[in-house]
């Protein structure tokens, strides 16, 4: 598995445990980018020459791959520069229809990218923002939903998977509750996609966002999925080439979705690279891989239990979670821990992981995070446990 990832193949001693921040790129994705840039590079706004046609085809077929990965229609796929851009798009395009009195429900477990856009929408539009709390085990307190979802709630913005605790949201329950008050649901899939293809039709949400760099693809590209019937009514977010029909001094008309939401030259080679990563992912045996990830996560959690003063944030169960484990060690600062781990070839991140509201709820300022992906194995976990014992010694 590791050999498919050029960086990991080249750095044999590296224990990369920061895939929740950025996953390493798969060879297929890199090759696709290269192939595109050296064989099919042109802009995609319907040039009629052969190269432009090739670029168009490649870009539109990337849309198709993203659609297959999510089990949706290609016309529902909007390419963006990343998950953050996708979520901001929803906050602006869907948010444009909201007004004072309307409410948006977010959770306290959100990454800043699915939290700050709603704070900003509140400032812009005077809407009210409700916050679904997290329980001490890191799970969303879904029991509060009936009370927090009101008639005025127009949108629920939640993460599918926490980038700190690995907690997975019970999406069906949320969708069910949201439907009851007629609210739409935007799901932040940034942390979920790296653990396998998604079935959005089954999940039942209305919008979905993810980034290429977190699922073994290139950076600079992401996806917003939206239900066709929603996309075709929403106003555009950014203005520019490609998203218009007619433009004159008096105004402009909108192109059809999804191009209405893709102002300017899109990240073409990056979309093509992302498609290659998604195609590769779709070729894998996910039930088996998930089992493996769970087993590895169990081993990690077991090992962490043995480390004096260590507290895992959120659940200690290896099942029903993503293999993302954050922890604090009494008296040791995450920066210092990560520094010592780095000296042992371990790449982990310490800090607030762009989830300050969640960390506040869990009572910490910063924590150390280990996130596992399909290229990690037992040697990575063993090295981490070893490294933590070293760190405790070196730092006290």
């Amino acid at each position, binding site marked *: 598995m590791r050999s498919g990832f050029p960086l990991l193949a080249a750095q044999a001693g590296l224990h990369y445990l920061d895939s929740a921040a950025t996953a390493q790129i798969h060879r297929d994705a890199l090759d696709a980018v290269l192939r595109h840039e050296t064989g099919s590079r042109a802009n995609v*706004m*319907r*040039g*009629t020459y052969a190269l*432009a*046609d090739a670029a*168009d*085809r490649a870009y539109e077929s990337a849309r198709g791959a993203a659609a297959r990965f999510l089990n949706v229609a290609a016309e529902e796929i909007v390419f963006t520069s990343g998950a953050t851009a996708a979520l901001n798009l929803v906050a602006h395009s869907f948010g444009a229809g909201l007004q004072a009195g309307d409410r948006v429900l977010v959770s306290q477990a959100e990454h800043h990218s699915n939290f700050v856009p709603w704070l900003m929408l509140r400032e812009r539009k005077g809407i009210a923002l409700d916050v679904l709390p997290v329980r001490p085990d890191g799970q969303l307190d879904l029991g509060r939903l009936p009370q927090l979802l009101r008639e005025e709630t127009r949108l629920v913005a939640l993460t599918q998977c926490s980038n700190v605790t690995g907690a997975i949201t019970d999406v069906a329950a949320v969708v069910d509750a949201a439907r009851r008050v007629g609210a739409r649901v935007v799901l932040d899939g940034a942390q979920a996609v790296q653990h396998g293809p998604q079935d959005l039709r089954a999940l039942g949400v209305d919008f979905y966002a993810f980034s290429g760099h977190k699922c073994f693809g290139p950076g600079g590209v992401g996806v917003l999925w939206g239900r066709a019937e929603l996309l075709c009514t929403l106003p555009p977010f950014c203005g520019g080439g490609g998203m*218009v*029909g*007619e433009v004159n001094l008096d105004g402009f*008309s909108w*192109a*059809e979705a999804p191009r209405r939401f893709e102002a300017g030259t899109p990240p073409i080679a990056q979309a093509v690279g992302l498609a290659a990563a998604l195609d590769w992912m779709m070729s894998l045996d996910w039930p088996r891989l998930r089992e493996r990830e769970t087993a590895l996560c169990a081993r990690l959690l077991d090992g962490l239990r043995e480390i004096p003063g260590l507290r895992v944030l959120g659940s200690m169960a290896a099942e029903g979670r993503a293999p993302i484990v954050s922890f604090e060690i009494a008296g040791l600062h995450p920066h210092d821990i990560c520094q010592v781990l780095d000296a042992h070839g371990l790449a982990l991140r310490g800090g607030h992981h762009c989830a300050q509201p969640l960390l506040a709820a869990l009572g910490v300022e910063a924590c150390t995070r280990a996130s596992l992906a399909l290229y990690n194995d037992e040697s990575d976990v063993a090295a981490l446990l070893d490294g933590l014992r070293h760190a405790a010694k070196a730092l006290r």
Partner: protein
Amino acid sequence: MSAGAELYQQAIKDWAGADHGHGRLDPADAAARTDNPLCGDRVQVTLRLDAGRITAFAQETRGCLLCRAAASLLAQRAPGMDAAAAAAASTALEELLAEGRDPPPAWQDLAMFAPARSYRSRHKCALLPFRALRQALEGVSHREQ
């Protein structure tokens, strides 16, 4: 002649040059306009109808040879057609362009568009007048997809 130029068979140039049905019916029983927002091409179709069948057809087309040839051809064939026939003609052209399928006997002239098959970005050009006709008949007048 090299590829690409082969697209411009005499038949296409002739149909485009003839510009059959050029103009605008006023009053009209149905009308539709389709645009290609990416190049500004536009087809305006006006119709007179009797019991759902076309009795008069006019087109105003701003576009490339493929688009104009298609509009001109359509003008010759439209009288007598109903919505189903228009849809069938449009489908015949779509299938010709997408899959290379031979057009039905009544629409043999569509074969002049066959060389456009490998130029995907041009399919829309030839289809634009057909879409306008369908929209006019369906009584919808929304922007071309």
